[in-house]
């Protein structure tokens, strides 16, 4: 179960992305632009935002999973237990992958090898790092399959990925990720392709494993329901940057800036009253090849003022909630021409007349 109450960002984190940049196509597309993100040991952190905002690009940078020919990671640092992973050789990175940090993807079918039994795939990381006898190896495979809830593991370990359902394949991916007992798991939209009933099963599994194994997790998702139930702290990402970060409870209780408000308003809530019209975020995220020069959310923001298009706001502490809660929005910052959204109740109707009325282009 997620801890309640304020979660402070850790002073000596397990992972610290320090001003990380990742770009593609000789720097023409900056998908991750100066991200600062911390994960404490055993902590569960959410990374949330619309598609195309750079969430996967950031996560894959941590394990250096991008095609090196068109990707540049840096400037910035990826500190894991104090060591900068960007300084490691490819050989050094191989020792990190799976053993220290493992990643699980949205689509298990493309991540699994179709011509290898799932048992062998679960043991692949063990085979690379530990010398186990055949009996010990098999025992470990069975133990992992049981752990993630795959029925009759002794026969199923000899089957191939296509012989499993989508939900079972995702369990296999989790077993592979856990096989070398990593300290941190990067879970990239792992339930997005699953039906809600299977999603509930997989999330329950992750929750129990996390508690029993002291795992730290980064849950990457666009679903605020998943964030609410699975995380201690949240980072909201928009157009390659972190635009708001806070303890999960604080983010939902006092979201500071208009993009987060937009995500919250458009998130389906089965317990809320039925409405005539839903509340979308108008327009769509910008292309990362040519992001807006002021606030990146300004073209879609119903609260924007003159300053928003002129200058890019920094990520600064939110005056209402304290230093652990920061937002990238002029409306929340006490500067000349800013500060008009401090303490604003996001549920109240917007009395502000948008000056940047370009939101009209529909997605």
């Amino acid at each position, binding site marked *: 179960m997620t801890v*309640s109450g304020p979660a402070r960002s850790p002073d000596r984190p397990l992972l610290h992305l320090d001003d990380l940049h990742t770009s593609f196509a000789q720097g023409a597309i900056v998908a991750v632009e100066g991200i600062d993100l911390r994960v404490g040991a055993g902590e569960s952190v959410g990374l949330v935002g619309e598609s195309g905002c750079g969430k996967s690009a950031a996560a894959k940078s941590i394990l250096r999973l991008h095609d090196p020919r068109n990707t540049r990671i840096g400037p910035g640092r990826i500190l894991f237990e104090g060591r900068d992973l960007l300084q490691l050789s490819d050989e050094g990175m191989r020792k990190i992958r799976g053993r220290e940090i493992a990643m699980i993807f949205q689509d298990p079918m493309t991540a699994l090898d179709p011509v290898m039994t799932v048992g062998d795939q679960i043991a692949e990381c063990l085979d690379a790092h530990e010398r186990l006898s055949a009996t010990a190896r098999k025992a470990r495979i069975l133990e992992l399959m049981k752990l993630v809830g795959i029925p009759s593991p002794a026969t199923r370990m000899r089957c191939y990925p296509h012989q499993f359902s989508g939900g079972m394949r995702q369990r296999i991916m989790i077993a592979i990720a856990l096989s070398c007992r990593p300290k941190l798991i990067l879970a990239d939209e792992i339930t997005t392709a699953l039906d809600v009933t299977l999603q509930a099963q997989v999330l329950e599994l992750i929750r129990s494993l996390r508690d029993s194994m002291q795992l730290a997790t980064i849950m990457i998702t666009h679903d605020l329901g998943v964030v609410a139930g699975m995380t201690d702290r949240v980072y909201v990402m928009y157009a390659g940057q972190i635009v708001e970060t806070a303890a999960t409870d604080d983010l939902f209780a006092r979201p500071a800036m208009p993009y987060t408000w937009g995500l919250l308003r*458009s998130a389906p*809530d089965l317990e809320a009253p039925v409405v005539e019209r839903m509340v979308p975020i*108008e327009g769509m995220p910008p292309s990362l090849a040519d992001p807006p020069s002021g606030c990146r959310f300004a073209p879609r923001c119903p609260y924007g003022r003159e300053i928003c298009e002129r200058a890019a706001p920094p990520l600064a502490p939110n005056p209402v909630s304290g230093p652990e809660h920061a937002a990238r929005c002029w409306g929340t910052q006490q500067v000349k021409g800013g500060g008009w959204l401090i303490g604003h109740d996001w549920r109240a109707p917007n009395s502000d007349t948008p000056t940047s009325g370009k939101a009209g282009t529909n997605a």
Partner: protein
Amino acid sequence: MPDTLKVQEKAQPLLKVTDLAVRFGEVRAVDGVSFTIAPGETLGLVGESGSGKSTVGRAILQLVRSSGGTVELDGTDLGALNGERLRTMRRKMQVVFQDPRGSLDPRMRISAILAEPLVIHGLRDKTAMADRVRDLMRLVGLHDDMADRFPHQISGGQAQRVAIGRALALEPALIVADEPVSSLDVSIQAQVMNLLADLRASLGLSMLFIAHDLAVVRHISDRIAVMYLGQIVELAPRDRIYAKPLHPYTRSLLSAVPVPDPARERARKRIILEGDPPSPDNPPPGCPLSSRCALRRELGDPAECEKRRPALTETALGHHVACHFARE
């Protein structure tokens, strides 16, 4: 709600599906499905993937042959028609699919995609055509300057607007929307859902709205049908099904959707469905849910569930449920 319900049930339905069955070899994809849709009504059809929702939609559109039952549109049995008469009736039903870009021809400009159904149905006049295309674009909220673009030059949400515009070109009475927003971000989903709600109100459209969970269909549906393994297990007016779900499957579906609020989410009781849905070529005997049912487990595994298939029965005005033991 009960008043409008009476009106809807009295009026002659636009669509009447009776005991529909579709088989693919051993697979009973649709196994005895019945429902009606009134003029102007939206029916939400919900269930996990593989439960047979798309096959119901395709059988209504006469895109797949049914192995039993009837589909009547405006009182006419579509199965009895062929040739020109079937084509005329088919014009009244149009479809919008999940994958907006995949359903648009990548080599055609948006204007040509919207004009295509008009051309096929004999509109020749160039000016009338251009006018109609421009009207359609405005109707679905696309800027005029999009007319000359190709599908890969527009976003997913815009592509879905084009698909909706194309479906509306021939002024259908019924739209089958098969997971039309499932591939879009929730922030963008709301844009498309609002468009569909507006169109329904202004054009008086009927809709079969297919989705894989209960969150998407909630705001737009008048009634909701929940499918499991080829069968409808619960069918009720919208407000009832969310407030008083009766079928154990509906209850687990509802409890599985996370809510965006940490305090409520932590306090929520989940009714977790064990395991995967059974394969439709080998369904459990009796009730389709019997192998995974939480209610049955709670009652100490009564044999009834495996013996007889429960019939869809009306338990309250307009509220139908197929379960031997479900009670309010």
